[in-house]
């Protein structure tokens, strides 16, 4: 039994934690929150230099050729730090999609630039406030030209390329859906900033009018590929959420020890103790489910969709509860702009929705359980 990260992976995690403590303190996140920029350019540059974006990219495309486990430990630390950089969009979404479905040429063209940190990528799937499904896709890709509007697109204003989900034929259901790579700096692309609950990550509505688009993956495989990309992203994002949930708990714990009321540390009151014990339990459950997701990715296990859904459902719940009860533990102070509790409350909401709400993943999970228990 070795259900844990290796010593090397733990070392990488420690290094990432120290690096982010130094280069991504709450102050840096607040600069983006306060609108001084749309993302932390300096940090993003450094992250590229550290090779984090290259982690899981094969060496032949300029990557480090490490596996998903290394990406998981980095993700956890980015989540803990609420890092305001386009890492998830570029690495979990764009790079993974290209690695999964891209041609040799496409891989060559894009992956090395992602590995070096030169290129920001994203996934443009959503078309407004409703869950993703074949019927929710109205953008069309015909003859290499893309038309339609995608919103919200994470890091949409700052990305260089987007993997776009579009209707490629009139075939019903999943078979009519395809993926395409679009140069967002090209003609026929216009972007508009979109305000969200988490201003520490950039968002845009992107309108395509006959924009040039190259197909990603074989015809008819788009939706299936998209689901596979989202499964993998769900695990990485679960680690971000677990990191954020742990950071929220750590903040609450620290405050409960330092703050006195009624002549005692507030952490000595059972109302606070039991609240934080509940958060701890949730976080542990989420962490363990995330580990199973990591194991599944690292071994390419057939359980991956089930493991990914379990990791996501559990992590969404844990981060949501930890972030809101962190504010509650801080009392009035927790509700001030001045304190950093809000950073997690906002990020928890973003991560809880960015690749689909838990509702959708619960449905996926049970569909897999049904299949398994039928066998």
């Amino acid at each position, binding site marked *: 039994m070795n259900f844990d990260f290796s010593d090397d992976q733990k070392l990488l995690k420690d290094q990432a934690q120290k690096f982010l403590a130094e280069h991504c303190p709450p102050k840096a996140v607040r600069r983006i929150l306060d609108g001084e920029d749309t993302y932390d350019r300096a940090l993003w540059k450094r992250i590229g230099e550290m090779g984090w974006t290259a982690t899981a990219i094969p060496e032949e495309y300029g990557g480090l050729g490490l596996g998903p486990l290394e990406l998981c430990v980095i993700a956890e630390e980015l989540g803990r730090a609420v890092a305001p950089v386009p890492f998830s969009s570029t690495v979990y979404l764009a790079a993974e999609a290209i690695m999964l479905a891209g041609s040799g040429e496409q891989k060559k063209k894009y992956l090395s630039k992602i590995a070096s940190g030169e290129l920001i990528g994203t996934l443009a799937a959503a078309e407004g406030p409703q*869950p993703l*499904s074949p019927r929710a896709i109205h953008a069309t890709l015909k003859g290499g030209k893309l038309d339609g509007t995608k919103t919200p697109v994470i890091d949409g204003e700052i990305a260089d390329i987007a993997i776009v989900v579009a209707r490629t034929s009139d075939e019903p259901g999943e078979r009519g859906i395809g993926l395409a790579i679009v140069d967002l700096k090209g003609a026929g692309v216009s972007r508009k900033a979109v305000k969200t609950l988490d201003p520490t990550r950039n968002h845009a509505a992107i309108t395509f009018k006959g924009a040039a688009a190259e197909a990603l993956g074989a015809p008819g495989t788009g939706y299936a590929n998209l689901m596979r990309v989202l499964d993998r992203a769900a695990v990485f994002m679960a680690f971000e959420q677990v990191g954020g949930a742990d950071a929220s708990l750590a903040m609450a714990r620290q405050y409960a020890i330092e703050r006195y009321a009624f002549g005692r540390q507030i952490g000595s009151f059972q*109302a606070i103790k039991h609240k934080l014990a509940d958060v701890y339990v949730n976080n542990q459950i989420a962490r363990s489910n995330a580990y199973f997701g990591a194991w599944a990715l690292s071994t390419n296990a057939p359980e991956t969709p089930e493991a990914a859904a379990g990791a996501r459902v559990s992590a969404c719940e844990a981060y949501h509860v930890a972030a809101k009860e962190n*504010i*509650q533990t801080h009392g*009035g102070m927790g509700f001030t702009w001045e304190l950093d509790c809000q950073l997690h409350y906002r990020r928890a909401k973003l991560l809880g929705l960015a690749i*689909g709400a838990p509702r959708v993943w619960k449905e996926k999970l049970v569909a897999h359980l049904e299949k398994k228990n039928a066998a």
Partner: protein
Amino acid sequence: MDFNDTKEEAAFRAEVRAWLEANAQPRTEQSGFARARMSEADALKRAKEWQAKKAAKGYARITWPKEVGGLGGTPMQSVIYGQEEAKFDVPTGFFEIGLGMCIPTVMKFTTPENIARFVRPALFGEEIWCQLFSEPAAGSDVAGLRTRAERDGDDWVINGQKVWTSGAHYSDYGIVLTRTDANVAKHKGLTMFFLSMKSPGVDVRPIRQINGGANFNEVYFNNVRIPDSQRLGEVGKGWDVALVTLMHERLAVGGGAGGTGPDVRELIALARATELEDGPAIRNAAVREKIADFHVRTQGLKYTTYRTMTALSKGQVPGPEASIGKIVSAVKLQDLTHFATELEDMGGYVVGDGAPQDGAFQQAYMWAPGLRIAGGTDEILKNIIAERVLGLPADMRADKDLPFAKLPTGR
């Protein structure tokens, strides 16, 4: 069992209604939007004008005796006026703390001269009052406050900091709870004063909240000098005076039972408008169960308020059980808005224009954490229910017998 007015109540309602119709415009959705867009200064000006009209008629404080400008009416009449007024496009909300909490305290503890001087202008909206109790180190534990008042001849000199003071920035006067003796047990060394918010040394700064709003203020006191005649109650008896203020706060009926954000009606509208994978969300069994759960909480609170109003109507005084309103509604608001944003799925964290229902769910999601804290945290309210309603024993106290100065403190 019915929802009807008694004969007397119906007569009063008709009277109020007639007066409102003669003096105000009915409320419409448009007037709501217009008010939401109005600057605070404009709203304040309009509110003051309206308050003067109400006061002239005796409606500004219905339960107060006629001698001090009230109507000598019942709490139920006050509720009825509130229900009727809510149907009209009139600005309110600036005077509740002053008239509901500060002035009753002042009236009980000051001289006839001061009453003659201060009550009428407050009633007519000419002077606004705020309540300066909470401090950075004294939130749930109000009596743990540190703002000092030191005697200097016939004066007192106040130094310290208050926080979470609603309306301090537009208030003319305030009542302030201070520590005048740190060498006795914490509840015993407090003294209450009132003062002009324009006094030299008073510095009001807005607090920005996580939802971007600034409904509250920090108030700094830097050698603020006030005469002893502005003391309310005896030296060292400030806690007893504060309890009078806080009791009046609790008497506000039905607070928190609604009006704090989108509710089940809006959720149903969202569920109708939202397409899930296989049809409108309103057809999804899980969504329907959630709607039902939220609905019974909302309705349960509404009918609890009706029960309280029935007690009022019979001349009874509602007890601390009214505290359930805010616990239920604050937690429900957070849960409901969380759920609604999840229904909107990948688009659920978009705020403002692009969001369904103008982003009302998202806005309320950012306000809900504050609602769970302001005016008593969930935890403090549960203590109140456990101790005052259920009669469970008090928690052990670390701060009962020690001199305040010897109490352990943190940040």
